[in-house]
């Protein structure tokens, strides 16, 4: 092989060798996994308007100035003013996280749209992130027997997704267990398996099923399993 063209020709011919069709079972397994996998919601807001004309710039500037003024009054006002002006509360005001905190499901038959969100408190989910002080917000979804919950830091960074099946979960769990590579997870307190293909932990009790997906695809599955196992133990006692 003496020149670039011959090398490229040979390299291309070599690359042409090998399989070109995806095995059917691989595609079918992927579609089966997708059946029980929720999509991440795109909650990102544009950081500015796509078109900023002079009027919108002025409006944005006024809003920003007003925000700075309000923050300034709240922070500096109590120190400048005398008794009777704005005073700081002796106890810390409730944070957004605290107000979002949820209680465990009271009734096993709960089918409200926020049923999935009631399994794990936002304060519990927040401890998973690197910036828990930003605040974790839970977004319920779904109706009837299947509800979902999406937790995001600051409403932006995806952190955790859960899906709760209040009835019919056993059949789904049996299907999940048939996937290749699925591992049984002990110490959850009930039946649980981990699918490394989707980094999802499935917790089953009776006819109920909860799937937990923590972290992002850039996280190692082993690390995600550790987090999901902790959450799985919480969930097992609440369904």
């Amino acid at each position, binding site marked *: 092989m003496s020149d670039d063209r011959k090398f490229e020709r040979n390299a291309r*011919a070599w690359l042409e*060798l090998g399989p070109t069709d995806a095995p059917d079972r691989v595609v079918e397994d992927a579609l089966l996994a997708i059946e029980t996998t929720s999509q991440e919601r795109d909650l990102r807001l544009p950081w500015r308007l796509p078109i900023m004309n002079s009027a919108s710039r002025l409006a944005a500037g006024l809003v920003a100035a007003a925000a700075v003024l309000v923050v300034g009054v709240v922070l500096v006002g109590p120190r400048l003013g005398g008794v009777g002006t704005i005073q700081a509360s002796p106890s810390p005001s409730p944070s957004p996280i605290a107000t979002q905190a949820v209680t465990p499901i009271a009734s096993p038959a709960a089918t409200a749209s926020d049923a999935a969100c009631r399994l794990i408190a936002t304060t519990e989910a927040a401890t998973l992130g690197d910036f828990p002080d930003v605040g974790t917000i839970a977004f319920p979804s779904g109706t009837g027997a299947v509800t979902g919950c999406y937790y995001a830091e600051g409403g932006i960074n995806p952190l955790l997704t859960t899906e709760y099946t209040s009835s019919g979960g056993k059949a789904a769990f049996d299907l999940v267990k048939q996937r290749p590579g699925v591992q049984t997870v002990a110490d959850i307190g009930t039946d649980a398996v981990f699918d490394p293909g*989707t980094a999802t932990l499935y917790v089953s009790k009776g006819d109920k099923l909860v799937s937990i997906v923590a972290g992002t695809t850039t996280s190692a599955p082993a690390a995600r399993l550790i987090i999901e196992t902790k959450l799985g133990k919480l969930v097992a006692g609440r369904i």
Partner: protein
Amino acid sequence: MDQVLVEQARKGDRDAFASLVHQVSSPLFAVAFRILRDNGLAEDALQNALVSAWRQLPHLHDASRFEAWIHRILVHACYAESRRRRESASNVRLLDLHGSSTSDGSRDLADRDELERAFRHVPLDQRAVFVLHHYLGLPLVEIAETLGIPAGTARSRLHYATRSLRSAIEAAAAMPIEEGRLA
């Protein structure tokens, strides 16, 4: 690629996504195999890529970029799969080049065997660029855009991959072809 299907899948339509999966699975698998040089790893990478694509699809704002976007997901799935099963790297199966060769001479056949051997020592990020360029025929600018890397980085990865492979071929060319050297 049918952008209507992409839009429907983006909004959560599993049937639409299944149609897309049937369209892209084989081309994606072919790329994954050529990067990883192992059927099992390529199958797992494809499966993970498809599930990741489903989960992340709402973040794709331009349906016309679906193909490039899913290739990026696939390449990252290949990286992850390789990391996960690094211990099995020594068991990578070589292709039966004897059976699949056409009318090439023994020198070309030996070159391809050396390519197979040498490719396994090329870092994955360089392999990905090499495959996207020489197998899919993508220009470097498009590869850079697909992988989300600067064009200069794509160029240097292709350069280093090519240099590694050429060195291996040239070293092999200096040696006589032996019976049974092909795996």
